[in-house]
C-alpha cells in the first residue's frame, strides 16, 4: 500500500499502483467526511466545518501531480487537499476537535488552518479567496531562489470575483510565475447560483484575458484532474507561466455542516456522480473493497485518538503570536 507522500510513488494514470494510491487517499478523505458528518449531527459540532463530500477527486487528483516541495495554498472545504498532499488524518481531527494533538496544537474548531511546511502544505486563508497573492509570493520566491518549485492556489468559484484573483493573475501572467490557479467550481457561492452573478459560463473563460491557458476538467474524475494538473505544472516548471484550471465539481452537502440548503432544488442530488465510484471502476473489485476497509480503519482510529486526546488550555493562547 502506497501511503507515501504524493510524488514519491509512480505517477502514471495507467499504472495500477498509482490508481490504487489515488483511490486510497480518496477513501481516507471520504471516510473522514462521513465521520465528520455524523459527528456534527450527533455532537452538535460547530457549523464551521464545511463539508467536502463529493469533491474528493479534485484535491486528491491535483495534489498527486504536485511534488512534495511544491507549495499548496488551499480553500476551506473538506480535507482532500491536505490529505492528498500528505497530511495524516490525526492532526486534522485533532484540530477540528480543539485537541493539542491537532495541527494547530489546540487552536482549531472547524475552519481548516492545517499547515505542514515540510510537505508543502502552506495553509488556508479563511477570508475566502485570499490565497491568490500568497501563492504568487511563494511562486516568486521559487523564481528568486532559482528552484523549479511551483505554487498552487486552490479556490472555489465564488471567489473568482475577488480583486486579488485578477490582480494576481495580471502579474503572474506578465512575469510567467510558476503558479497554478485551481478552481473547484461547484456552481454555488454559499447559496447563490454562480450563473446569476457571472458574466461568463466558465471561470476558465477569464484566462483568455490574461493570455494564459484556461482548462476545464471533469472534477469528479481524479485521473482527468491529475492529467490536467500535471500539464499545468510542467508548463509552470518550464518557465511558461500560470494556468487556470477549472474543475467542475459537485457539492454533495450544504455550505456548512447543518446548512438546511433551502436554496437548492429538492432533487439536486440526482445529478451527482460519486468520484469514488468513478475511480473504483478502474480497480480490481477486491482491491477497492480492501482499500476502503483499510482507510476506514485508519480514519476510525485517528478519530477515536483525537477524541481521547487532551483539549487545549489557556497555555496555547499566546503561542505562535511572535517568534523568538
Amino acid at each position, binding site marked *: 500500500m502506497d501511503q507515501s507522500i504524493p510524488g514519491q510513488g509512480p505517477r502514471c494514470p495507467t499504472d495500477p499502483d498509482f490508481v490504487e494510491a489515488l483511490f486510497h487517499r480518496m477513501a481516507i478523505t471520504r471516510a473522514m467526511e462521513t465521520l465528520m458528518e455524523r459527528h456534527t449531527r450527533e455532537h452538535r459540532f460547530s457549523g464551521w466545518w464545511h463539508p467536502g463530500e463529493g469533491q474528493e477527486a479534485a484535491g486528491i487528483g491535483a495534489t498527486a501531480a504536485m511534488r512534495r516541495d511544491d507549495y499548496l495554498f488551499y480553500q476551506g472545504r473538506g480535507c482532500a487537499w491536505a490529505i492528498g498532499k500528505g497530511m495524516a488524518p490525526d492532526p486534522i481531527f485533532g484540530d477540528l476537535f480543539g485537541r493539542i494533538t491537532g495541527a494547530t496544537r489546540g487552536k482549531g474548531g472547524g475552519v481548516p488552518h492545517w499547515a505542514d511546511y515540510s510537505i508543502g502544505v502552506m495553509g488556508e486563508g479563511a477570508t475566502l479567496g*485570499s490565497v491568490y497573492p500568497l501563492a504568487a509570493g511563494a511562486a516568486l520566491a521559487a523564481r528568486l531562489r532559482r528552484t523549479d518549485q511551483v505554487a498552487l492556489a486552490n479556490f472555489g468559484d465564488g471567489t473568482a470575483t475577488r*480583486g*486579488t484573483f485578477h490582480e494576481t493573475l495580471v502579474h503572474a501572467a506578465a512575469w510567467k510565475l510558476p503558479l497554478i490557479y485551481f478552481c473547484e467550481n461547484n456552481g454555488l457561492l454559499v447559496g447563490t447560483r454562480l450563473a446569476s452573478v457571472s458574466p461568463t459560463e466558465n471561470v476558465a473563460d477569464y484566462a483568455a484575458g490574461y493570455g494564459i491557458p484556461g482548462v476545464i476538467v471533469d472534477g469528479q474524475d481524479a485521473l482527468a484532474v491529475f492529467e490536467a494538473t500535471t500539464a499545468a505544472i510542467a508548463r509552470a516548471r518550464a518557465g511558461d507561466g500560470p494556468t487556470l484550471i477549472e474543475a467542475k465539481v459537485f457539492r454533495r452537502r450544504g455550505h456548512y455542516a447543518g446548512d438546511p440548503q433551502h436554496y437548492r432544488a429538492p432533487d439536486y442530488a440526482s445529478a451527482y456522480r460519486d468520484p469514488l465510484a468513478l475511480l473504483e471502476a478502474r480497480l480490481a473489485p477486491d482491491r477497492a473493497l480492501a482499500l476502503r476497509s483499510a482507510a476506514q480503519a485508519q480514519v476510525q482510529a485517528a478519530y477515536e485518538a483525537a477524541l481521547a486526546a487532551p483539549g487545549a488550555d489557556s497555555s496555547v493562547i499566546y503561542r505562535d503570536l511572535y517568534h*523568538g
Partner: protein
Amino acid sequence: MAEQGTAVMAYNAAMGLALIEEMRRDERVFVLGQGVATGGWFGAEKGLADEFGRDRVIDSNIAEAFEAGVAAGAAIVGMKPVINMGFGDFALIAGDEIFHKLAKWRYMHGLDVPMTAVVIFPIGVMGGAGPEHSSCPEVLGMHFPGLKVVVPATPADAKGLMAAALREPNPVLFHSVNSLGFQRGEVPLDPDFIVPIGKGVVRRAGNAITAITYGSMLDRTLAAADRVADEGIDIEVIDLRSLVPLDWELVLSSVRRTHRAMVVHEAVKTAGPGAEIAAQIQERLFFELEAPILRVAAKDVPLPQNGDLEQLCIPSVDEIADAARRLMAI
C-alpha cells in the same frame, strides 16, 4: 571589520542605505512596490535596481493587495520581502493581506516559525497631499496582534530600524515619516548598526513632565520643551521609536519621576496611539499621577488638502507648549 564613522544623509536615503546593506548580506531580501525599480517615489530605493537587478527590485502595477499578499506568501516560504506601499493610507486597500495574513498566519496555523517581512508605510502630512495621502494609520498595527510597528524619527533610526526589521523574525510595519523624508542627520555607517525594535529613547531629560512622542512630532515636542524651559517647565521627551512592542519600562520609569505625562502624535486623537498609552499609564501608575494625562494629536477630521488648513489640523509647537502649561497648572 565593521565600517566606522558617520555620514550626513537624508532620512529616506538612510532607510535606503539599510536596504542596500541588508540586500548585500542576505540574498533572501527583495523589494517590491510601485516605482521601486526606478528609485522609489521618495528616493528610498535609489540605486537598488542598479546594484541588485530587476529580479530583486521589482516594480508592480497599482495593486496594493497583491503586493502585500506577495509579501506574505514569500515570507511564509522563508524569503524576506520589503514592500513599499507608497502611502500608509493604502494599508486599508491591502487590509486582508496585512492585518489578517501577515499578522495571523502563523498563529492560526499553530506555527512557531520565523516570518520576516517589512511593509513600508510612508505616513503623515507632506504639504497638500490630501486626506487619502496623509494619514497616520500606525494604530492599526497596534490593534492587530502579530505585527511589530516602528516609526523612526531621525535618519539614524531610519537606518537602524530598517536593518533591525530585516533581521526580525516577525512582520514589521515600518512607518517612514513623509515630513522627515528629506531631513538630514548623522547616520552611522556600520552595516551592523541596529536600533533594537521595542526600545525607546530619552531625547531630552527633564523632571516635570514626561512627553511621549514619536515620528514627526519629535522635533515639535523638543521645540516646545525648549520654549517652556524658560518658564521653568522641565520636560522629558521620550521618542518611542517602536509602538509594538512599546517600551513601557522607559515610559513608566519616567512618569514615576515626573508624575505628569502627555502624549503627542500626528495621528488623529480619537482611538489613536495616545489613547492606549494614556490608558495604560493610568492603569499602572494611577496613584503616582498629579494630573490627567493629556493627548496632543491631530483633529478628528480627514486632513484637508489645502496646505495651510493641513497644518492647522496637526499639533503645532504652540499647542504642545500650551498643553505643558496646562499640565503644570493642574
